[in-house]
């Protein structure tokens, strides 16, 4: 039986070169009966963990290696023999990456020589052989690569001659770029994308033939039939490599404690000190018990350092006035609560600690820390400073091909007209792939062979890595230098270094990750607190916001929640009048119920019926009552599902956690099925009816990965309540803070401004004499404030421009500027910036119309550098005054919003004449009525859980209208529904429980003589 080991395989993590996923290569090697495979991506080990996970699963040996680029652009293959060799390989790659611009790497022969220990080198003949021979000794092999190219023969002859002269053994190889010959076209396309050319102009930049696939042992032996030693020696090389990623030893950094206190003792002391503060000196016995239990486990698993790190980061935030709050399962931990990392008391809320940490889970805990997004960089730099660049690096994010980028890049590589590609890209959504019918819709006929290639390759390239980016806040910290574990490279952002693995890789290897996530809502809150303090002298923070405020909950029940964290979306707004949250726990439920898990698990309607008293609250077994009581017998949270398994099926906490993980992965591998028999039979044993047991299992399965843990929902609900309270009691501060925290949330500034007007907050336009960069509050009368829009919203005006305005504005004795000429001359601003400001009405304060202002600016700019200015004798020409429609339109064009009016307000007479209702009137129409409506699209949503139903939110000057579009209607009107910013709809009203939806039946473009400007829509899955 022939056999060999492919020693030169590049996956698609050799970016835009390899055309197979790492796991595909491993699977194919296994299918072909090979026992080993070396992964040698270019200057990196990006795909190693994915390949390792698959190799472990299939039981084949994965050799860790890399193709290293040298200064002269030649390459050499290095394979790790053992753990020190792997560390050397990572260090060598880090050296090359860190000294080169992002995306490239260069090392010298000296660098290689310095890291040669524990590595096998496969020399392709490109470099001077003597230094390599000295560095690697008998671990240096010459690699004879054959791809049936005539040009290779001469190189092979030279290589063999040199190898013979230096006594270097030879080994055969094929440069594997794809696991199957069918991927050859994709490899050509990837090359064209990399080289920025098309397949027809690529010439010799693409490979001469398709011989770069993973060859079977028979084919490989045939290729080297003239020299069988080259085949045998591949196995010799593989046998010399016995390193596995499982050997990686990793230690979390220990805190340096000068007084000989151990990390655990220090953590214990901090925890109980914190507990005293949290419980005002008297720690309840249940809390003490819980803390001791948690601390014992933390000590046993040797995790104190991790908790101390998180505590230290939180302390840094507090000391520097940065709002932060732990999210996710960390809120299940009393230790985290007492350390100040989280804000929810898990003991009082009866949260399940095992959801966060358990002995059975052989993996570290995951604490995600939300930090106000505008100040997250300060925290990141603090972590670098504290641990040093050697021991701290950010986790990568692999940017992959999604449908839009796929059709654009593949289309360009195939020479398809960019206009066609753009048209197609606009029709695609992130989650639906690139189905054939979209090509037809975009006018790309699939009966043309090239177009068929286009459709097929666009589908094939999906999920391929495009390049590496930085995770928003994931850090890998290590006791030893990180570069011994994984190569480090430069991030695009200055001052950032990033490892070559993403969070899934880090998790797969059980390494500790610290997540510092930016959260706009915390920035929003911080800004509101500052505004309250500065304008009203009200000192407020999260802890001091009055709890259970009835007015706030009244407002929430009316779904007036634009800008309120987590409950502002269309779906949440539709749920609020039905669920009618009246206390904090209702808000926790509200946050978690509008999630794919509960929706697909069929839990929403039973819960609502029981809550409204339409259905009796019943428990399938008395033992389940404590678990499900809080949610009226319906499981809504991940913890409940886990507790259900513990109580009803006698799962250990660890088994329950495994159930949660399998729930998360069931869609991919069907792991959940292995729990079916176990759960049902154990429940039956406890006396629970088989029918109910089955139903519980179905619910668990439906719950999938999409449910929130209760702790996470509670953490978010805290922020939701805080923002809602501010909206209710301090709307001006709320709006001002929200606008200044942009970009964030669900709505555009235009929608926020319209909503503010409906809240009767006086919104004032940008004014070059008074506006700040951000929005500011201006006192109207005692205790009443208006919001003045900031210049940051004017398109094309940069912070530098604003600073020049402020600098000159503050110099003038009387404040401000005497005239437009004065402003133009003193600020020296670019004419484009000045004209945009004029277009936005920022010069209205000078008493000139916008057109006059533009005319004056053009004249003044011309004279700016004229030392002999002429005195202007005459008044400027006459210009037609702008109508209200034009004024609002100009506002939208120049700043994306208008405080002066809504684009549809001046069109209302025309819309009325067409018999079209506005949003306010629509809410009063009875259920089942047929209506016609026209509005501006502000949001499109196509949830995967909605069975093909699309939701849209439209807006006019009186409010929102929510559309429900059934699958067939959407399909019929897809192009207009997806692309038109101003839409007319004919449909039927659905009014239930105070929630009004318009069920769309037909879409059309309103035939008006004017087209309103819009701020665009935000489209979500």
């Amino acid at each position, binding site marked *: 039986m022939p056999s060999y080991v492919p020693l030169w395989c590049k996956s698609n993590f050799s970016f835009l070169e390899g055309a197979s996923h790492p796991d595909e290569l491993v699977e194919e090697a296994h299918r072909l009966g090979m026992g080993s495979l070396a992964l040698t991506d270019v200057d990196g080990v990006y795909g190693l963990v994915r390949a390792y996970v698959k190799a472990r699963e299939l039981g084949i040996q994965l050799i860790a290696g890399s193709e290293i680029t040298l200064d002269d652009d030649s390459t050499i293959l290095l394979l790790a023999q053992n753990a020190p060799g792997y560390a050397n390989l990572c260090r060598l790659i880090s050296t090359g990456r860190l000294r080169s611009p992002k995306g490239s790497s260069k090392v010298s022969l000296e660098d290689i020589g310095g890291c040669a220990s524990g590595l096998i080198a496969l020399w392709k003949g490109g470099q001077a052989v003597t230094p390599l021979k000295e560095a690697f000794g008998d671990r240096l092999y010459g690699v004879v690569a054959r791809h*049936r*190219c*005539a*040009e290779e*023969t*001469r190189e*092979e*002859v030279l290589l063999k001659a040199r190898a013979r002269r230096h006594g270097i053994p030879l080994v055969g190889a094929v440069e594997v770029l794809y696991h199957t010959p069918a991927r*050859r*076209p994709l490899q*050509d396309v990837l090359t064209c994308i990399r080289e920025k050319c098309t*397949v*027809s102009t690529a*010439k*010799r*930049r*693409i490979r*001469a*033939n*398709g*011989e770069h696939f993973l060859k079977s042992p028979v084919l490989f032996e045939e290729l080297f039939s003239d020299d069988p030693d080259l085949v045998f020696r591949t196995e010799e090389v593989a046998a010399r490599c016995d390193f596995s990623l499982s050997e990686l030893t990793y230690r979390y950094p220990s805190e340096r404690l000068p007084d000989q206190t151990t990390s655990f003792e220090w953590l214990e002391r901090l925890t109980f000190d914190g507990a005293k503060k949290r419980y005002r000196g008297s720690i309840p016995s249940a809390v003490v018990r819980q803390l001791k239990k948690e601390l014992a486990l933390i000590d046993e698993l040797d995790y104190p350092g991790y908790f101390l790190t998180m505590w230290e980061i939180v302390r840094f935030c507090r000391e520097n006035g940065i709002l932060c709050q732990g999210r996710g399962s960390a809120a299940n931990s009393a230790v985290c609560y007492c350390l100040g990392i989280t804000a929810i008391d898990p003991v009082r809320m009866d949260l399940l600690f095992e959801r966060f940490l358990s002995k059975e889970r052989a993996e570290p805990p995951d604490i995600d820390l939300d930090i106000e997004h505008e100040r997250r960089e300060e925290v990141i730099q603090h972590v670098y400073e504290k641990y040093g660049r050697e021991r701290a690096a950010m986790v990568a994010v692999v940017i992959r091909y999604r449908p839009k980028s796929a059709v654009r890049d593949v289309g360009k590589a*195939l020479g398809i007209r960019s206009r066609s590609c753009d048209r197609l890209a606009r029709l695609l959504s992130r989650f639906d792939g690139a189905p054939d019918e979209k090509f037809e819709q975009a006018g790309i006929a699939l009966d043309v*062979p*090239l177009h068929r*290639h286009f459709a097929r390759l666009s589908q094939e390239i999906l999920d391929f890595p495009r390049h590496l980016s930085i995770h928003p806040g994931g850090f890998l910290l290590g006791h030893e230098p990180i570069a011994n574990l994984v190569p480090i490279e430069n991030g695009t952002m200055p001052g950032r270094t990033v490892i070559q693995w993403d969070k899934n890789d880090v998790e797969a290897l059980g390494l500790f990750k610290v997540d510092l996530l930016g959260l706009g809502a915390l920035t929003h809150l911080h800004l509101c607190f500052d505004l309250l303090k500065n304008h009203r002298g009200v000192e407020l923070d999260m802890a001091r916001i009055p709890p259970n405020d009835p007015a706030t909950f009244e407002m929430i029940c009316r779904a007036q929640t634009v800008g309120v964290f987590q409950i502002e979306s269309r779906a949440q707004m539709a749920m609020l009048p039905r669920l009618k949250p009246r206390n904090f726990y209702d808000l926790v439920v509200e946050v978690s119920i509008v999630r794919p898990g509960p929706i697909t698990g069929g839990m929403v309607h039973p819960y609502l019926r029981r809550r409204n008293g339409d259905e009796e609250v019943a428990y399938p077994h008395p033992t389940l009552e404590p678990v499900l009581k809080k949610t009226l017998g319906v499981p809504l949270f991940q913890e409940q599902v886990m507790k259900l398994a513990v109580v009803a099926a006698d799962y250990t906490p660890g088994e329950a956690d495994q159930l949660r993980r399998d729930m998360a992965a069931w869609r991919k591998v069907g792991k959940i099925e292995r729990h079916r028999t176990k759960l049902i039979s154990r429940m039956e044993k406890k006396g629970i009816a088989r029918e109910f047991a089955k139903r519980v299992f179905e619910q668990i399965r439906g719950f999938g990965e999409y449910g929130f843990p209760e702790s996470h929902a509670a953490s978010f609900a805290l922020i939701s309540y805080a923002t809602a309270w501010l909206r209710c009691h301090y709307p001006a501060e709320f709006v001002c803070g929200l606008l200044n925290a942009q970009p964030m949330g669900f709505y555009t500034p235009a929608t926020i401004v319209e909503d503010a007007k409906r809240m009767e907050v006086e919104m004032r336009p940008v004014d070059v004499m008074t506006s700040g960069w951000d929005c500011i509050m201006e006192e109207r009368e005692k205790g009443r404030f208006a919001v003045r829009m900031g210049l940051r919203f004017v398109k094309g005006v940069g912070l530098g421009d604003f600073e020049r305005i402020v600098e000159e504005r503050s110099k003038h004795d009387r404040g401000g500027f005497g005239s437009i000429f004065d402003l133009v001359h003193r600020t020296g601003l670019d004419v484009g910036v000045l*004209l945009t400001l004029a*277009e936005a009405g920022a010069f209205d304060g000078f008493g000139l119309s916008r*057109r006059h202002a*533009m*005319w004056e600016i*053009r*004249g003044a700019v*011309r*004279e700016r550098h004229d030392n002999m200015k002429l005195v202007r004798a005459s008044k*400027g*020409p006459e*210009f*037609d005054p702008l109508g209200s429609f034009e004024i609002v339109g100009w506002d939208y064009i120049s700043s994306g919003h208008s405080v002066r009016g809504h684009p549809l307000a001046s069109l209302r007479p025309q819309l009325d004449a067409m018999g079209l209702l506005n949003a306010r009137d629509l809410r009063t129409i009875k259920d089942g009525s047929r209506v016609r409506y026209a509005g501006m699209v502000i949001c499109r949503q196509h949830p995967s859980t909605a069975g093909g139903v699309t939701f849209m939110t439209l807006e006019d000057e009186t409010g929102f209208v929510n559309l429900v579009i059934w699958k067939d209607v959407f399909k019929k009107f897809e192009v207009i529904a997806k692309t038109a910013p101003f839409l007319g709809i004919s449909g039927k009203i659905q009014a239930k429980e105070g929630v009004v939806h318009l069920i769309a039946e037909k879409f059309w473009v309103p035939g008006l003589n004017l087209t309103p400007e819009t701020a665009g829509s935000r489209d979500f899955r």
Partner: protein
Amino acid sequence: MHRAGAMGKRVADRLACADLRIEVEQKETFDVDTAVILKRLSGFSPEVESAGEDGNAFWLNATGLERLYGSPGRWAEAILAALKEMSLSAAIVVGFTRFGTYALARSGQGVTILGSPEAEKEAVHRVPLARLGLLPSVRGGLVKLGKQTVGDLAGLRASDLLERFGPEAYRLCNLARGDAWDPLRPVTFEEPLSERLEWEQPVSNTMRLTFFAKGLLGLLVPRIARGSRALVALEIGLTLDHEDKFVERIKPVEPTLDEGQLIDLVRLRLESKRLPVGAVEMELTAFTVPKTTKQLVLFPKRPPRNAAAAQRALARIRAEFGPDAVVWARTKEGHLPEAQFVFETTPPLTDTFSTRVQCRLYDCQERQTGRPFVSQKPHRTLVRRIFSRPVPLQARPVCGPRGCHLLGMGHAPFTRIVGPYVVSGGWWVREVYREYHFAETERGKIVWVYFDKRRRRWFVHGEVS
């Protein structure tokens, strides 16, 4: 008028004249030269101008022509009909000012006759600025100010516009106000020079024809020289006895008035052709360019090779064997052998030319040496001669006891085959998959063959010697 370089490109032509003005708009899709239109329009007015900036517009001076045609309308209709014959459609405006006719032609269709300067002004003021081809930034700026038409623009002070929007808006404003006036700048038509000679008895003797040509050249060259021009091409037209016309064109190396050189080229060309019957008429037509004068170099450096002499020699070869007789193989980046070079007309020779050729040959030799051939005899130089078209072989080779008869039973069998070297690709248009082999016969002949997997057939693509 656009020079319509690409088929399918929509060409919009406009035409107008100074006193009586015309604009032509071509709506058909075809390839028309500006010169052809100018020539055609010159039949309607002695003074025709092509708008330099807007290549689609023409002005014609029609002063006094209404007497010839009866009315300006008929004159315009006649032009329209003439242009239609050329598959052109047009907007023609007969008016009083250069700008007025231009602006109206850009915004109208068919024939417009303006009765008075006032009527023209009124009509022009209604023309949208969008039709006048202003820079988008200028037009956008004016539209923002609510200035949408020529009339709006004319209401502004030109000096204010110059300050704010630059010279383009300034000029347009002045034109709109009638403050600017440019005289018509008619084109002049250059005719090629020619000389003719007729015989009563047909002449077929090349030598005699050459001598006749020499006589005609003796007349032509002084005429060319008088115009300070030089000859770049010479067309020899022979009217054959009861046969079609015989036309040949020769080109000297560079523009010249050297009769000796020209007659030598004429002789070579005529000697290379065989006339079916005798000629009864000869016409020589000279195509000329303005003569350039070169600065004489006091101490010219003599190049190691005489490129000029080489050029003259190549010109003689072209004259004798036709213009495609001399080509140059340029290497190209491609995987298929035939895609790795292309034959092109030779570029002007330089002194480094032969060095470059040598380099290329060296490179070829390196590439062409296959593994076994080089390794065994490193000093042996093998040259692969590639056939211009691969020669198909029998579908299935016949293998006999002495080897494989790929070339057929009449040829020696192959005793040694090296390969395959695979070249495949082109999947996006027409997939190619070739397996190349070097095959050596028992007599030592090496051929370069491939198996075309798609066509399932063997081909010989070259020989190695």
